[in-house]
């Protein structure tokens, strides 16, 4: 007996609705001028709030700050963490498991408490209220994605692939660049996207280390939500969402379901 596909379609449909619905609502709000009950769609459309928001320097500066902060700290985290992940995956050294576990343990500590203690140190170093101070703190929030996913990905690459290249005369560096990195690319791309998004939305560290001189988009969103105008918040949400979407598109080429699953050690 053939099973009817209706049940599956229903589940798929409701999942899609649950995921896309809220995003669609936010996007609609960003372009709505008037939208009142019981209308299903806005009754008056326009870019009015966009011009209003983008016209304000207090909005533009955090947008640019956030983009710069996120790009720099994600990339720096990748440069530091990916080779470390390779070491975790391939080398055996004492305390390896303990160190790997400590990255998770650090996640279990309330972030805010952690940042307070970091802030004390940073205050002495003059990194509070400083752009680079925020870069460093936000890098920390990416460490989990940048270590665990790539470690699992590197571990998932059969050593024979690297050995075959080494055996044919390639140097260790060449093996890493031409064999290991391309093999791990889907998972590395996934870890980059996840880290990018988590840093872009990061609030605690930015607030404690950055305030009051460095303002990021999520901080702006928080401060605006006091004087709530739905459309303004929606415009900001879309503004934050766009860079994430772009990064996702850029890395989509390298991401396959298999590669990502491998990255998560599935």
């Amino acid at each position, binding site marked *: 007996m053939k099973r009817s596909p209706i049940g599956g379609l229903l589940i798929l449909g409701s999942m899609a609705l649950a995921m896309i619905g809220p995003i669609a609502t936010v996007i609609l709000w960003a372009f709505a001028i008037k939208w009142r009950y019981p209308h299903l769609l806005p009754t008056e459309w326009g870019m009015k709030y966009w011009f209003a928001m983008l016209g304000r320097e207090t909005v533009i500066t955090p947008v640019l700050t956030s983009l710069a902060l996120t790009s720099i700290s994600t990339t720096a985290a990748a440069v530091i963490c990916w080779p470390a992940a390779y070491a975790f995956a391939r080398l055996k050294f004492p305390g390896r498991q303990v160190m790997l576990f400590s990255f998770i343990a650090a996640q279990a500590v309330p972030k805010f408490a952690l940042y307070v203690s970091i802030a004390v140190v940073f205050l002495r170093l003059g990194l509070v209220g400083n752009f680079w101070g925020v870069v460093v703190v936000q890098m920390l929030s990416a460490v989990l994605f940048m270590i665990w996913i790539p470690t699992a990905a590197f571990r998932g690459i*059969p050593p*024979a*692939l690297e*050995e*075959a*290249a*080494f*055996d*044919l*005369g*390639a*140097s260790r560096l*060449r093996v890493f660049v*031409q*064999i290991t990195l*391309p*093999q791990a*690319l889907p998972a590395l791309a996934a870890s980059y996207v996840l880290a990018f998004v988590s840093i872009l939305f990061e609030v605690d560290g930015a607030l404690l280390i950055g305030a009051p001189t460095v303002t990021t988009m999520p901080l702006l969103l928080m401060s605006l939500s006091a004087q709530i105008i739905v459309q303004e918040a929606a415009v900001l949400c879309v503004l934050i969402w766009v860079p994430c979407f772009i990064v996702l598109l850029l890395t989509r080429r390298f991401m396959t379901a298999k590669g990502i699953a491998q990255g998560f050690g599935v």
Partner: protein
Amino acid sequence: MLDIDTITKTFAGAPAVREATFTVQRGELVCLLGPSGCGKSTLLRVISGLTDADSGQIRIEGADVTAMQANRRPTAMVFQSHALWSHMTVAQNVGFGLRVRGMPRAQIAAKIADVLDLVGLSSFGKRLPAELSGGQAQRVALARCLVVEPKILLMDEPFSALDAHLRKALREELKALQRRSGLTTIFVTHDQEEAMELADRIVVMQAGRVEQFGPPGRLYRQPQTLAVAQFIGVMNTCTTAIQDGMARWYGVDVRAAMPPGEAVVLCRPEDLYLDPNGAAATVTRVIDLGPVTKVNLITPEGDLLTWTCARDLAPVQGALVRLMARHLHVFRGGNLVGRIEQPDLVFQEGAMT
């Protein structure tokens, strides 16, 4: 050509290879044969340089390469898992070793075409490894090694993941190719039929030790250790005591001009023949294998025997037969101490029925 000189390798205290020593001639195909965990793959990796030996020396054409890294050694290895790089096409996989050597592009392309032609995959250059069958993938892996013209080709159970028919076909192809090119080859396998068919000489390994090194036929007919005798082919094993130049073999006395003491006496199933004065045994099963018939028997003492004979000689199940052996191999402490050819049967009272 290749000297393996007292190579020892230990993993976390457990010896994997113990004082392996043998010499491979130029153009020879040598199989490392043994059960899994006997150290044959480890020894191959030591030859390739992917694993460092604890002690001993590897010489290629007289030059000591023991301290040389794998990427500097004139060897190339085909892995069991074929280990093709999935992000490169077949041509890119094959050309990798040449690009590493900095060969000009045009020359690389010509070499790739040649070697793909050699392994019968000339139209496959643009494919990805995922689009190949198991046999094709292993041929590409072979081509990838051949193209860099190694002095020694190393193969680590390259066909063991393939089905039986393909394995046989590839084995014959490899043998023909190896004969033509005269490439010195070391081939690791646990499959004795594969080793017997491919090898000029076989190194039999057991628990990290080289048990015997010789041509396939000699290993079968003249095993030097108990391990080789029991690993290659089938042997009927009889543990006995030698006394006054006599050994008791399945209830009959045979002349054994050897010092007294415990001994293990072995005979091949095909070396048994019907003899009215032989050892008595009851037929438990008759298996018609086609070319030969295999007969399983049990002696009154409960020892199991296997006899292979022509179909017209085969008894029926339940029959009582008397068997004698043409050759007996006698081992003591794991080593060969003598062979009894056409053993003289010592007539025993009541042996005739």
